[in-house]
């Protein structure tokens, strides 16, 4: 493991300090926590607070999306480990303006349980809290009997939309309704060329051969659904768009937002080549995305790979929310 860090145990606090000190115009640390809150307090006045968070290692997620028009606060857990309820609760208190607080949680047992406990703490303080559990990763079979699907890169669309709605004055109930309407339309699938190395673990989550890739991996190096030999970008797109189409039934009469997301060690060069192939493939469906982003938005430390998110925009207002201006590090 060769990394630009100090003591592996200090990565999270040092990283959070690095972020807040480099961008004091957007974020600041909540005293005694590894959570960050908007510096622009004025922008939160009278608005519902939007709080997200999760394990660290997905930078710029989540702290990079805190700022006017997007998240109110983000809670940074240990690497690949859900933050604890006390920290989430501190973030809820820091953003609450009497309008209530909405939590954006990714569907991992740890996150769900810790955010739930924080919600319990908040309810003891009479702070109204609602939440959405994002589960956009279609690599995993869905089932009500199991944990269900993971929350991955599509989560940033949720952050963006709810952040814009809250900034424009939506109530807690309206945000809750919006979140639940949006959720089933966001779908993501990934392909990895190499796994992430958690600095505290010191070795990669799995090892692929020099010519091997794996479809369907998660953002914590959770194994995917198939390994095979590396293929050209076009063929990867064929597989991933195929999976999304199976799930969403792509339709030229519908509108879509598209996110090509680098996992941390994949250069933009490759992401743009891949994006070009995605656009070609979507053209075969007579689809031209109404909104598109390409870059490192929900990373997995130093994993090499890409995820592809499609989001069916059922309501033009959602598109306005996506285009609404924000003041953040990472969007």
């Amino acid at each position, binding site marked *: 493991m060769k990394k630009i860090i100090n003591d592996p145990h200090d990565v999270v606090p040092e990283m959070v300090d690095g972020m807040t000190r480099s961008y004091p115009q957007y974020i600041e640390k909540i005293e005694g926590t590894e959570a960050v809150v908007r510096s622009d307090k004025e922008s939160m006045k009278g608005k519902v607070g939007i709080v997200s968070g999760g394990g660290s290692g997905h930078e710029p997620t989540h702290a990079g999306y805190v700022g006017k028009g997007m998240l109110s606060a983000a809670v940074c857990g240990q690497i690949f480990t859900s933050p604890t309820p006390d920290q989430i609760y501190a973030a809820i208190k820091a953003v609450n303006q009497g309008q209530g607080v909405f939590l954006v949680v990714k569907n991992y047992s*740890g996150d769900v349980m810790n955010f739930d406990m924080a919600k319990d703490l908040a309810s003891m303080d009479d702070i109204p809290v609602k939440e959405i559990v994002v589960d956009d990763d279609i690599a995993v079979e869905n089932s009500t009997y199991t944990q269900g699907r993971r929350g991955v890169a599509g989560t940033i669309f949720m952050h963006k939309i709810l952040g814009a709605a809250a900034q424009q004055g939506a109530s807690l109930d309206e945000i809750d309704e919006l979140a639940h309407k949006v959720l089933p339309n966001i779908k993501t699938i990934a392909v990895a060329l190499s796994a992430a190395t958690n600095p505290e673990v010191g070795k990669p989550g799995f090892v692929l051969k020099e010519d091997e890739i794996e479809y369907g991996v998660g953002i914590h190096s*959770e194994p995917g659904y198939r390994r095979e030999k590396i293929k050209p970008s076009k063929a990867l797109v064929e597989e991933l768009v195929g999976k999304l189409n199976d799930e969403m039934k792509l339709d030229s009469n519908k509108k879509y937002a598209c996110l090509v997301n680098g996992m941390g060690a994949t250069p933009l060069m490759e992401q743009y080549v891949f994006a070009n192939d995605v656009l070609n493939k979507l053209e075969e469906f007579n689809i031209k995305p109404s909104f598109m982003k390409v870059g490192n938005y929900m990373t997995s430390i130093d994993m090499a790979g890409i995820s592809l998110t499609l989001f069916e925009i059922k309501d033009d207002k959602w598109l306005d929310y996506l285009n609404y201006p924000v003041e953040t590090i990472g969007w």
Partner: protein
Amino acid sequence: MTLTVDTLTVWMNKFADKIETNKQYLSDLDTPIGDGDHGFNMDRGMKAVEEKLSTKPSDLTNGLKTIAMALISTVGGASGPLYGTAFLEMAKKSSSTDNIGELLDAALAGIEKRGGAKPGDKTMVDVWSALVPSVKAGNLTKDKIRSAVDATKDMVAKKGRASYLGERSKGHIDPGSESSGYLFETLLETEGLL
């Protein structure tokens, strides 16, 4: 069968040691079917527990609460709220009983409620639900613990990170069950407790 703040402290220190010794192994168990951090999570938590307990809590309820809060606020992940809830429920229960079996019953109920897992889902619930009755019956043994833990190996995970693997989660011991096994082993090793 009575838990006191002193036996609780001995138990927890033993558990902390066992976790520290096996933290790499626990994380290794968590690698093929999870995210490889269970040992580090538990070790971080139990170090915090040891530190907090060193300030000598006044009574059993305070001791259990101290443990719960330390776990809840330092472990994170899935195991943090689960172990945390377990001790929190024991703390609540301790106002009416100091019987270890009854306390563990409350703990198990808390874990099941918090995580929604049932026996057979390949989680720590499997170990707890197999062993709490043995504690109550006064016949907990190392062998029973081992087989409760090993039983998770052939299960298909339905909750937690391992569930994303479906059928492929078979053939691996559940890391949270292994660490729970340590909790029961150290309970057994704590003199004057069972």
